[in-house]
């Protein structure tokens, strides 16, 4: 049984349907990548998993329980933590305070402030700085650290590398295996297809709200993915 899965997931913004019958699954300990062009529905899928957009109860299963439609404060308490699109730190809170907000889920475990600063040492000197005053890369580190502070079983990451310099992305990407070692399963949205494949065990390609290609990351052909972006998948 998968740790987290969707079953015929439909999602709507008002009258507009953003996802059509999506089936994805994340196994315990796995890292799954979601790839697809702008507006495909990647963010919407993550939001459906965390309860940010309303979906029917049976469409999302977590650890054997139907959780579709549970609000984000409840899904995070169950162990699904998120790095939202655009990182969205609390701008008037310091780095320390931003990280501590991750504890509001009430979940205690191995991740502590010190653990986060060991994972991202460059944040240590910025503890007292406001979230709004950090570089993009540091903001992403805080956003990841803040989610880890919830000691999640599943980490949803929307746009790991968007807008960041390659060296910074490397620093952040290096943290993912260390996060996985602690038993966290990851679902990752990533624009950079090669990086997405190298970081993940399994990948789904989404186009216009539907999965049109999927497979183990090592076996997916780059050319097929390119075609899937334009809707010509085999």
């Amino acid at each position: 049984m998968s740790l987290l899965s969707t079953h015929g997931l439909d999602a709507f913004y008002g009258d507009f349907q953003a996802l059509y019958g999506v089936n994805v699954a994340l196994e315990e300990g796995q890292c799954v990548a979601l790839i697809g062009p702008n507006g495909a529905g990647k963010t919407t899928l993550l939001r459906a998993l965390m309860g940010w957009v309303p979906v029917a109860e049976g469409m999302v299963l977590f650890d054997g329980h139907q959780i579709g439609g549970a609000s984000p404060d409840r899904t995070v308490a169950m162990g699904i933590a998120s790095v939202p699109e655009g990182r969205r730190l609390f701008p008037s809170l310091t780095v320390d305070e931003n990280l501590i907000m991750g504890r509001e889920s009430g979940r205690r475990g191995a991740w502590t402030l010190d653990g986060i600063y060991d994972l991202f040492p460059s944040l240590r000197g910025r503890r007292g700085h406001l979230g709004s005053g950090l570089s993009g890369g540091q903001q992403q580190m805080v956003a990841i650290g803040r989610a880890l502070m919830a000691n999640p079983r599943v980490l949803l990451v929307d746009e790991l590398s968007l807008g960041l310099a390659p060296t910074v992305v490397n620093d952040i990407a290096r943290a993912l295996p260390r996060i996985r070692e602690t038993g966290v399963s990851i679902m990752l949205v990533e624009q950079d297809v090669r990086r997405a494949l190298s970081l993940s065990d399994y990948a789904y390609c989404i186009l216009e709200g539907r999965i049109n290609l999927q497979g183990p990351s090592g076996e997916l052909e780059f050319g097929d993915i390119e075609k899937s972006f334009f809707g010509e998948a085999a």
Partner: protein
Amino acid sequence: MTELLNSIIQGILIGGLYALFAAGLSLVFGIMRIVNLAHGDLIVAGSFLMYSAASVLGLPIWVAALLVLPVMALLGYGLQRSLINHTIGTNVLPPLLVTFGISIILQNGLLQLFTADNRKLDFGAIEVMSLKAGPISVGWYAILVFAVSVATIWGLQVLSFHTRLGRVLRATTDDPEVARVMGVRTEHVFGIAMAIALVICGIAGVLLSAWTSFTPLSGPSRLLIAFEVVVIGGLGSIWGTLIGGVVLGVAQALGGYFDPAWQTLAGHISFIAILALRPQGIMGGRRQ
């Protein structure tokens, strides 16, 4: 000259009270982005609660005052969870309409219960005692009011920046959607914020109940003062409300010094002047 100095001191001291009017309004606007049109009436409700406890039930002043605050807190949390939370969304109109409705209900309910008579509580000797320094004479009650106001504002500052609740309030003010993703039950936090706002209204209402007379219809003028103080001091700044209150109080005192009829007008002029010259307010756009 002495009289002018006395007026200014009086203006500063009442400024503390004005800051209390504004602090709750600013807190609620900051976190929920709604203007609570019933805010002034809730201050008056605090005064009438004090009146009920002290004059009707005959409780000692201190007991009555301490009783008002938890009642106001419960009222705030209840109003928020049962009514106002349901109006919060993308549309700005529903919260305005609902809080306007609460305002009307409060005014008419208080009229029914207490009639339109002027009320004023008597806190005893402290009201007539004054501190004299040469030609300057300042009432002890005004000093007490100012001290309580500053202590309340300071307490709000400590709560905001040195407690878990304060951190959650500030995070929710920044981004309620992401706060919820962190596990914050925002509907509960909004309730707590309204409870805090109404405790401050309660403190203001208690202090005011012996300062000037009040009627069930005194609310809107209090709301106006609160609104002006928030704009003068700068939205989102806790100490800004104190500065805004003092500026408004002194402006009124100066106007009143030259001509009693000018008192209120001078306050409004200071408000318009700040709005024109520094729209973000004196402390606005700054971080503490």
